[in-house]
């Protein structure tokens, strides 16, 4: 990847992270950990990869995005806002009475949200349905679904995985966000899902394992997915839950907790510092 482009992406990911912290702080609740960990991948997808248009969010030809782990709505809203789907200032209304930015994403009310999610495991099935429709219509769009590594403990995920390869849904790319944390602790302690890649391969998927904070590897992975025909691709990305805010990194307790004012200010100044260095 071009170094100038990479720098721009990193700066944008910083802003997206600030949007996450802003939203969750104002809401006084929500899920910052997984949201921060996902920021790099979503920034890449929305800024570089997906065929979406904020002026025409309902375009039938658009690529689809399903946040199957819907609790990370703060990062989806943030990246949508920074992509021009709605004003960035609206992020402050997250989870408030009357706001369209509900605790979990709702399709039809927020421009750019393609599926209502929040109950883990269900979004992935819906993504399979969208990809199947794309195939039967011979449409050119691609479907992206993001799953948590805890989420893949749900049996429904493996039903969907079987379905997607059976129908050869090569227009579907799943991203498993492998931060090894869920609510009750480490994924490997609570209910091991490992080896993730071998499981998906056994289910007939093309698998790619990457560092989910390395834009070069992220780009290669999505290019690889697009080139793969006849089977769906899963990108298993190692990420740090809470990435970018030092005291939230790799800490299970920041899964679903809002920062207080002092923590908010610390988080925002860390991110602002990171942004400043990138913009110099």
């Amino acid at each position: 990847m071009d170094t100038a482009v990479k720098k721009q992406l990193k700066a944008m990911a910083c802003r997206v992270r600030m949007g996450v912290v802003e939203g969750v702080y104002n809401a006084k609740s929500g899920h910052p950990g997984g949201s921060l960990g996902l920021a790099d991948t979503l920034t890449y997808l929305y800024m570089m990869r997906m065929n979406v248009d904020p002026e025409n969010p309902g375009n039938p030809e658009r690529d689809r995005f399903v946040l199957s782990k819907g609790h990370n709505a703060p990062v989806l809203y943030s990246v949508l806002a920074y992509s021009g789907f709605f004003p960035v200032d609206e992020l402050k209304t997250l989870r408030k009475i009357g706001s369209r930015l509900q605790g979990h994403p709702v399709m039809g009310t927020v421009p750019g949200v393609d599926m209502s999610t929040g109950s883990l495991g269900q979004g992935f099935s819906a993504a399979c349905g969208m990809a199947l429709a794309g195939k039967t219509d011979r449409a050119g769009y691609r479907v992206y679904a993001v799953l948590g590594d805890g989420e893949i403990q749900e049996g429904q995920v493996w039903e969907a995985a079987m379905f997607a390869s059976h129908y050869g849904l090569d227009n579907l790319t799943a991203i498993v966000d492998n931060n090894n944390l869920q609510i009750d602790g480490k994924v490997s302690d609570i209910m091991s899902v490992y080896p993730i890649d071998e499981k998906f391969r056994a289910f007939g998927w093309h698998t790619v394992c990457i560092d989910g904070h390395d834009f070069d590897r992220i780009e290669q992975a999505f290019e690889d997915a697009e080139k793969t025909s006849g089977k769906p691709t899963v990108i298993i990305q190692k990420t740090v839950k809470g990435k970018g805010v030092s005291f939230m990194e790799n800490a299970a307790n920041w899964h679903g907790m809002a920062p207080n004012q002092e923590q908010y200010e610390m988080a925002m100044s860390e991110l602002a510092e990171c942004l400043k260095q990138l913009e110099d």
Partner: protein
Amino acid sequence: MAELSEKELRQDGNAVNKKKATRDSYGEALRDLADRYPDLVVLDADVAEATKTAIFRKAYPDRHFDCGIQEANMMGVAAGLAAAGKIPFVSSFAMFAAGRAYEIIRNSVGYPHLNVKIGATHAGISVGEDGATHQCCEDIALMRTVPGMTVIVPSDDIEAKAAVEAAILHKGPVYLRFGRLPVSIFNDSSYKFEIGKGVLLRDGTDITVIACGILVPQAMAAAEELSGKVSVRVINMPTVKPVDEEIILKAARETGEIITLEEHSVIGGLGDAVAAVTSEKCPVRVKKLGVNDVFGHSGPGDVLLKEFDLTKEGIVKLIVNR
């Protein structure tokens, strides 16, 4: 008034106004009853800190099994544990315990009438900011339809703890519904909870309010506010199935009019359970106060209860304007 530990006193700062979520009572009851009932085991699906089964896990780590995020499998495993003689308490949010695992509850728990106790927390709209996907207002309806299922909706700390023990002593499947929002403790420590029995909290002759769960104090407050103008009878109905027919029919005959109050859809919950009894045996007007066949949305739990008229004001308005 329940006894308060030093920690509880310190956290609240004011013991008299102490509030407690029934999910906390649930976790504490499991812990406190574990020694007396050695077959009791607990399953959770990655929400132990939230359902409060973590309180039990801390004291009895060997009898707590985290299944990860797999509610359907967890329910099936519970069926097997019960078939092998254990008394499993299965916990998740009401949405996923009753909703996600419904068909397993029906076929693997209900049909063989296994001794599985479902401890579902985060019921109703008072879940708050998580929004509609997590605000389960259909669980009572779902669970009532399973033959042989007992459905209990405790109203406060004292009743919740008593209900957990009653569920252990009862042979067969039980659904226990707990809330996330801290609520005041109004039952007396001498209160004897009995499955299938409603409780007359306040006598009255003009109209009866039958409530369950965390809204019971709202019914009491409404009756108090109307005293001198309208004589309101208040009944706490912790067991929605089997519902206490006797207390309903007595109220129907003596007050001629009933309002039901629940943090649940008006379809299939306490209101329908009460109306089913009156329509057959003593037809009177039954007005159901609940969630009117809509989804909830994000916001603070107490604000949502106000918005949905599930408060003292909502009941008073309904009675005055009837």
